[in-house]
């Protein structure tokens, strides 16, 4: 630690401004996911000496000769004992270009809820396939989760290329099949990369074995993929979190509405409507954590002040007055059930969307979806943990809910058990794969999916 520091390191480390990418990986140990994650952490020099020593020590105690990089990511005792991953683990690493938050999720079908959790905040998803097996049922499930959660960027990592002699034709066939499938689900962008996580080909450094491939390595792609989309494309939404009223001698009349801008851009002078009350006013000031600004955008946390003294409280949503936002008590949504207690029609629940929590009732569960082939099962009667399905809800109060397809932030909600507070279900308002053409022939019933 006492080594001399060159001035370049000093300068860049202290002043570097980098962006943040949240991404998720889906795949099983068999696909080499842990090896890929371990290699990304290791080769980007994010695994520190004491962590590596701990892994080596644990590996030796279990009789393994080489350090098992999967132990870097399997944290809980139960997981180590059973050699499985049961939960979403968050990993942090950085390169000079970018900071990364990796949601590392298990791939098996009984862990769909973990994959959904990891994908919910991801801007990019890495789907792994084994080059020897190509696109299999699990791959289609992972693609469907990424599409359902509207992860903007999907990377297909075709792993174990060393075991198929680094053949371009093998890669191209898998990449084509996957891209066609993902595109049909409405995934806006697929990048396919041939890799060998074990050998290190195209993970951090370019492969010496695949000169037919001229694209980026996995890390290069993670470092350069564009993560900021233009917020001016989105309608502005401001869920009020908290009303700031100092009532001090210095600020006797200050009344600020604190919140994180969920989507779009807000400007001083904008005419806004308060939902669900329908009152209107004009933004007179925006405080960006101590700095007065004229413009603010998602996902900044700000405090707004308005021209009029209105009755606004936590849970209200401010939106531009010209927005087509119509609060409704009837919600149709695609959900992933998370809890071990099944969700049934008639269930009384709490629905939490943005900063608002209201009572709701499950009116109907019209269908359940099999992710692997997108086949539907009408009237399933219930949804059990890891099921994806369609639900119809009635809420006690009108909610200013956006279609999830338009806003991941104000179109997403949780169902909560009012008796013990458990999180039951994750919901996405509106249609599941709204942009896609019908990808597969299914025996759709009348209340089927709008592909």
């Amino acid at each position: 630690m006492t080594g001399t520091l060159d001035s370049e390191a000093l300068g860049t480390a202290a002043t570097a401004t980098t962006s943040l990418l949240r991404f998720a990986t889906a795949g099983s140990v068999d696909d080499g996911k842990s090896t890929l994650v371990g290699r990304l952490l290791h080769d980007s020099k994010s695994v520190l000496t004491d962590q590596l020593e701990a892994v080596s020590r644990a590996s030796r105690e279990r009789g393994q000769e080489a350090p098992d990089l999967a132990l870097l990511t399997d944290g809980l005792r139960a997981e180590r004992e059973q050699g499985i991953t049961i939960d979403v683990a968050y990993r942090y690493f950085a390169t000079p270009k970018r900071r990364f938050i990796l949601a590392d999720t298990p791939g098996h079908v009984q862990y769909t809820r973990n994959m959904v959790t990891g994908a919910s905040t991801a801007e990019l998803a890495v789907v792994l396939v084994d080059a020897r097996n190509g696109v299999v049922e699990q791959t289609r499930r992972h693609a469907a989760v990424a599409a359902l959660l509207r992860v903007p960027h999907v990377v297909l990592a075709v792993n174990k290329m060393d075991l198929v002699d680094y053949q371009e034709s093998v890669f191209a066939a898998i990449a084509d099949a996957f891209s066609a499938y993902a595109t049909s689900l409405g995934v806006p962008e697929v990048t396919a990369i041939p890799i060998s996580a074990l050998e290190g080909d195209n993970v951090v450094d370019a492969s010496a074995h695949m000169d037919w491939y001229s694209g980026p390595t996995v890390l290069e792609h993670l470092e350069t993929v564009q993560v900021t989309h233009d917020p001016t494309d989105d309608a502005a939404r401001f869920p009020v979190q908290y009303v700031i009223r100092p009532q001090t001698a210095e600020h006797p009349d200050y009344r600020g509405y604190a919140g994180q801008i969920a989507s779009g851009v807000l400007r001083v002078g904008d005419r806004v409507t308060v939902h669900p009350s329908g009152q209107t006013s004009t933004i007179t000031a925006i405080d960006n954590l101590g700095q007065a600004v004229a413009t603010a955008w998602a996902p900044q946390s700000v405090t707004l002040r308005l021209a009029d003294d209105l009755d606004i409280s936590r849970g209200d949503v401010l939106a531009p007055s010209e927005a087509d936002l119509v609060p409704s008590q009837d919600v149709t949504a695609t959900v992933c059930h998370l809890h071990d207690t099944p969700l049934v029609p008639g269930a009384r629940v709490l629905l939490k969307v943005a900063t608002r929590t209201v009572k709701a009732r499950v009116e109907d569960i019209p269908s359940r979806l099999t992710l692997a082939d997108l086949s539907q099962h009408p009237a399933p009667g219930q949804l059990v943990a890891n099921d994806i399905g369609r639900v119809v809800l009635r809420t006690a109060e009108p909610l200013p809910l956006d279609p999830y397809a338009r806003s991941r932030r104000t179109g997403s909600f949780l169902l909560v058990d009012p008796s013990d507070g458990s999180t039951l279900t994750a919901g996405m308002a509106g249609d599941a794969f709204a942009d896609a053409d019908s990808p597969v022939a299914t025996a759709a019933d009348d209340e089927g999916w709008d592909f």
Partner: protein
Amino acid sequence: MTTAVTVPEETDNPFALSHLDALESEAVHIFREVAGEFERPVILFSGGKDSILMLHLALKAFAPAPVPFGLLHVDTGHNFPEVLEYRDRAVASNGLRLHVASVQEYIDAGTLRERPDGTRNPLQTVPLLEAISAGRFDAVFGGGRRDEEKARAKERVFSLRDEFGGWDPRRQRPELWQLYNGRHAPGEHVRVFPLSNWTELDVWQYIAREKIELPAIYYAHEREVFSRSGMWLAPGEWGGPKDGERVERRQVRYRTVGDMSCTGAVDSDADTVEKVIAEIAVSRLTERGATRADDKLSEAAMEDRKREGYF
């Protein structure tokens, strides 16, 4: 598909947020969620850099109003004087309410017994839980970060604790999007970790950007230390050094600040925040690995302590 696409630099986008802006906005969002949904939150405040950062973010989140909750310090009695002084100054200058749970009082009363190794870190759990219960705190902010330790990598931002303060990894609620579920039964409480997604480097970069003052022991200084278990410990009333442990003067700084008996200093000449950042950027050890004896107890040391209600 196999051709590289030219992507414009992220910084060309006028709406791009730096990673520090993104982390700051997320943490402020978490503070405001808690203020909106809980009755009696409290910030665990040790005077260490992570708790100082939490206080800074809370001040920003509610300005120009004061922070709508107080601080809780679990005082092991083995404090660095510089840190206590910092704590008292922060409380006074921001008009905050400070609650103190004293490990020493428990030892004096005979409810807790001093350990043979003299470390008091594991003794903090009971005073912490009783202070939470006595103060009827329903949300307790902690400075824990997921990058610190494996058992923390799966920790939620809102972490539910039962009426005994226990943490059951299997009872933790899935956390999706930015929707935090803080519902709890009477007697239960929720630990809230607004710095979950920060790394040690982020913390220091943000401290530099915001010009946040820290206790001086975070920067290189000359100090009398002795070596134990590969760490430099400071002599003090807590019981070091023992026979055979030789005290020497070295240029050191602290990467973490906890109980004096188990928080080690590292050799360092980083006497400014910029030098500290550069030092961390090239360091090959995690901060806990370098400086915490308590985490070396076993592979699952942190997991076990968390289950019992530790921070």
